[in-house]
């Protein structure tokens, strides 16, 4: 696709809304007591209810309902005094009953908002609704490329069928790909803070569809809308929406109409392609599920849940910046990745918060990245980080050795002190040993020593270097400096 000049792009305004599905981390499925644990042999976590066996009946999971209410409250939604479940009817082999239990005309939560910030420009994105539904099974397409098109047959595993999902629908208040990404990142951070899902975009426990349309700037009517699917990371969401905005712009500029359709994002190709044309409208024949009764959380219970909400990311970021002196960007990273709690723990254990923040945002985050794990799952306690920083502070470890010690801690070798000891990382602070090394250095480099004596302060570096080399880096450089100065003082 060609690059479109800025003066063309600015003639249009993108109108974007996101639909996000979050798989809840409850112990059991939405409507039955089968375990939700990830993995397990195919079809090993099924029962009459989630297999849709004749005669079986659904009973909703209280923990899933509470998770929905808590997310709604965190998004400043109204909680419906009475909401209900509907049946969404359509035939598909991965859906055991050939209808999905979902919420339709009265979702459990509606009319909320989420504040997002791109480059210091805050925007409020309206939340249309948060509703509960059940997931489908998983299909394995055999033959062809592994995608559904061109496959020979499909094999279905119903372990995922019935896992509770929350669907969060935004208002079309998003105006750019960067905002879309920021919205999803913020929503994810809230979900993580609430602890209701592990919200992994790559693994599908958080999924996002984007509705994108363009209209001439300063007009009100919506343009033709396209739905994009299959974006498996924050980055691919941004790329896909960007791509689609450019594609629409080109078409509109060329006088070609945009076709209403569903498009599939191909991460490798960096492009979207038609998945389903508009003609296939589904007639879901929604009606209230007669097997389930209305959900009417009482006001006291809602209040209890509201009071029990954890500190939410926006407030957390504010506190990190205002109270702990963390840089705004670092605060965003830590809160977004779920590391803020480690920071709080480290700070409570006596660490200097900005220093701890740097370690978390840099070393620890990149270690997790290398290991392919979520930073939120970083195997380090705040207290261990505080201990590590204290060792640097007291001179037991150089910054460089502290990194090595951290590696050991993250690898599960023990506390920072245990790792430092086991790996022999502690700096040599034994005065006798240091004095011997200092004397050796002066003896081996008499010219440098003479220069220092003569007032050339820079020359001391060569001597320090010699001591550090002789000690294999374990001498405390600050102390070495002091000893050299003592020895060479006039």
């Amino acid at each position, binding site marked *: 696709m060609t690059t479109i000049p800025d003066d063309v792009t600015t003639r249009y305004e993108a109108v974007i809304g996101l639909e996000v599905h979050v798989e809840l981390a409850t*112990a059991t499925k939405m409507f039955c007591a089968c375990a939700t644990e990830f993995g397990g042999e195919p079809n*090993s976590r099924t029962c009459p209810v989630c297999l849709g066996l004749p005669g079986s009946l659904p*009973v909703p*999971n209280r923990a899933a309902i509470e998770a929905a209410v808590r997310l709604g409250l965190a998004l400043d939604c109204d909680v419906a005094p009475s909401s209900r479940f509907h049946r969404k009817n359509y035939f*598909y082999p991965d859906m055991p009953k050939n209808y999905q239990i979902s919420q339709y005309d009265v979702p459990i939560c509606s009319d909320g908002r989420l504040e997002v910030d791109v480059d210091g420009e805050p925007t409020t994105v309206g939340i249309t609704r948060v509703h509960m539904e059940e997931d489908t099974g998983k299909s394995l397409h055999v033959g062809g490329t592994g995608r*559904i098109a061109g496959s020979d047959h499909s094999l279905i595993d119903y372990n995922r069928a019935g896992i509770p999902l929350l669907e969060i629908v935004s208002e079309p208040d998003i105006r750019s790909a960067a905002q879309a990404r920021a919205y999803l990142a913020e929503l994810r951070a809230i979900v993580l803070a609430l602890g209701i899902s592990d919200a992994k975009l790559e693994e599908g426990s958080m999924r996002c*569809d984007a509705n994108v349309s363009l209209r001439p700037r300063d007009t009100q009517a919506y343009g033709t809308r396209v739905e994009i699917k299959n974006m498996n990371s924050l980055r691919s969401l941004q790329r896909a929406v960007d791509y689609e905005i450019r594609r629409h712009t080109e078409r509109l500029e060329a006088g070609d109409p945009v076709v209403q359709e569903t498009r599939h994002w191909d991460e490798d190709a960096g492009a979207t392609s038609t998945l389903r044309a508009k003609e296939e409208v589904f007639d879901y*024949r929604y009606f209230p599920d007669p097997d389930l009764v209305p959900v009417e959380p009482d006001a006291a219970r809602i209040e209890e849940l509201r009071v029990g909400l954890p500190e939410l990311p926006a407030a957390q970021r504010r506190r990190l910046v205002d109270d702990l002196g963390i840089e705004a960007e670092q605060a965003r990273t830590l809160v977004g990745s779920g590391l803020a709690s480690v920071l709080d723990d480290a700070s409570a254990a006596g660490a200097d918060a900005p220093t701890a923040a740097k370690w978390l945002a840099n070393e620890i985050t990149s270690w997790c990245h290398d290991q392919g794990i979520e930073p939120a799952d970083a195997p380090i306690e705040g207290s261990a980080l505080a201990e590590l920083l204290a060792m640097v502070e007291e001179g037991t470890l150089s910054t460089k050795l502290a990194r090595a010690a951290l590696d050991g801690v993250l690898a599960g070798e023990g506390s920072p002190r245990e790792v430092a000891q086991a790996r022999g990382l502690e700096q040599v602070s034994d005065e006798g040993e240091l004095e011997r090394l200092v004397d050796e250095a002066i003896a081996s480099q008499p010219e440098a020593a003479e220069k220092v004596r003569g007032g050339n302060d820079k020359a001391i570096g060569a001597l320090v270097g010699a001591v550090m080399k002789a000690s294999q880096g374990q001498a405390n450089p600050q102390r070495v400096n002091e000893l050299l100065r003592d020895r060479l003082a006039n």
Partner: protein
Amino acid sequence: MVALSDEEVQHVARLARVALSTSERDQLRGQLSDILAYAEQVGEVAAEDVPPTSHPYPLVNVDRADDPRPSLDREAVLSQAPRAEQQRFRVPRILGEAPDGEEA
């Protein structure tokens, strides 16, 4: 008075995933038209301000604790399948995407 067209019968049969023969469609067209004409009597009652009733006995907030229970034995589950392979239920190739578009 309802009189269903053959196209409507075909459309409904598609929605309901029932393959109907031409003669079945013909017969059903008449029968469904008669039944719907009879059922249309519900519309002769003015009920604008009347709330619909979906549950005959009023209950609210029935749910269960989030405690796992054992699932069914997998072999027993799969033994009922018309076709199974690799511990999964086998179906012929699927033509359409799911409405939610996801490709597991």
